[in-house]
């Protein structure tokens, strides 16, 4: 029997066999592993503690006991921003704040996500013709989810976070 095995195992067949084994392993492990990694990411999104304008009040109200965004894993991390992976741009971005916001975004490690909260962060909102206001943050940050409202109710913000979770679930885990 050993003799037949010796004749059967040649470099080409070994290659083909290892290739097929690799395919099976990728299908069996990569998809569930990716799912597990994404599951870990989406249930522990930590936002950076940067308050930009008036929508920060509804963000604070979302952390209050009635709307409780902490059950979704979104805890405001009071450490450094190098441990966070979510930037919630709350409200109007002025020309003075824009370089600082970009600096904060650049200092965060990958993977990172951006939620634009409020009408002012999406298109400039009520202040579209002011001299010191950026017309939306699309020009400086890559936005994942837009949450409209002026200000959006806390439930709307939570719906925005759930949309972001759906997006992460279907993402390729890097």
């Amino acid at each position: 029997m050993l003799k037949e095995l010796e004749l059967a195992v040649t470099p080409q067949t070994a290659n083909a066999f290892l290739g097929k084994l690799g395919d099976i392993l990728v299908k069996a492990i990569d998809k569930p592993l990716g799912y597990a990694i994404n599951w870990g990411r989406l249930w522990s999104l930590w936002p950076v503690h940067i308050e930009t304008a008036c929508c920060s009040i509804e963000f604070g109200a979302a952390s209050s006991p009635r709307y409780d965004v902490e059950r979704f894993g979104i805890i405001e991390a009071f450490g450094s921003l190098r441990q966070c992976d979510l930037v919630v741009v709350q409200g109007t971005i002025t020309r003075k704040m824009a370089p600082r916001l970009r600096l904060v975004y650049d200092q965060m490690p990958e993977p990172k996500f951006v939620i634009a909260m409020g009408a002012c962060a999406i298109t400039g909102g009520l202040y579209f013709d002011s001299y010191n206001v950026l017309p939306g943050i699309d020009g400086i940050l890559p936005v994942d989810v837009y949450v409209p409202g002026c200000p959006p109710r806390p439930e709307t913000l939570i719906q925005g976070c759930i949309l972001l979770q759906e997006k992460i679930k279907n993402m390729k885990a890097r």
Partner: protein
Amino acid sequence: MSSEESKTKPVTQTQTAPAKKEPELPKFEKDLSDKIVTKFGADTEISFVKPNRVRINVKKEKIIDVATFIRDELHFDHAESVTGVDFPNEKEIEVVYHLGSYTDPQLNKQILSLATRVPREDTPNPGKDSTKLQSLREIFYSVEFHERECFEMLGVYFEGHPDNRRLLLPEDWADIPPMRKDFRIKGR
């Protein structure tokens, strides 16, 4: 000595008296304004006297003396705000100080507006052109940040203020001071 009597406007429109006679000016406020005008004469002018609100126009050279008099004799002790108003047609900028009092119980309700005018140039160069005014910081300390804001928004340079630099605008603001009427915002 010139003092200008002015009509007080009625607060509501419900009084439709057919014969309009001059209503009485409120006495306490008239006293205050008269004290200033008797002391300083032609340099000051009463603009209006209303219940709880008095406005005095002063020439810009005399503003330090008038302000010291108001603080020492009339017991007003702080400034509520400093406003700059741009009048491009008359080529002047008006700076209005609203003064109030915490220590004197009779003056708690009163707000005294002290107004001066400074010349205005068409191409402003803040700090180096003729739009200059003496700072009231030594007399009323509370105007420090208000005067800084007036400097950056209108270009009025306050001499004697230790720190004429911008407060609210971005560091790289290179345009004319934004509250001037020549500065038009987008699309209007």
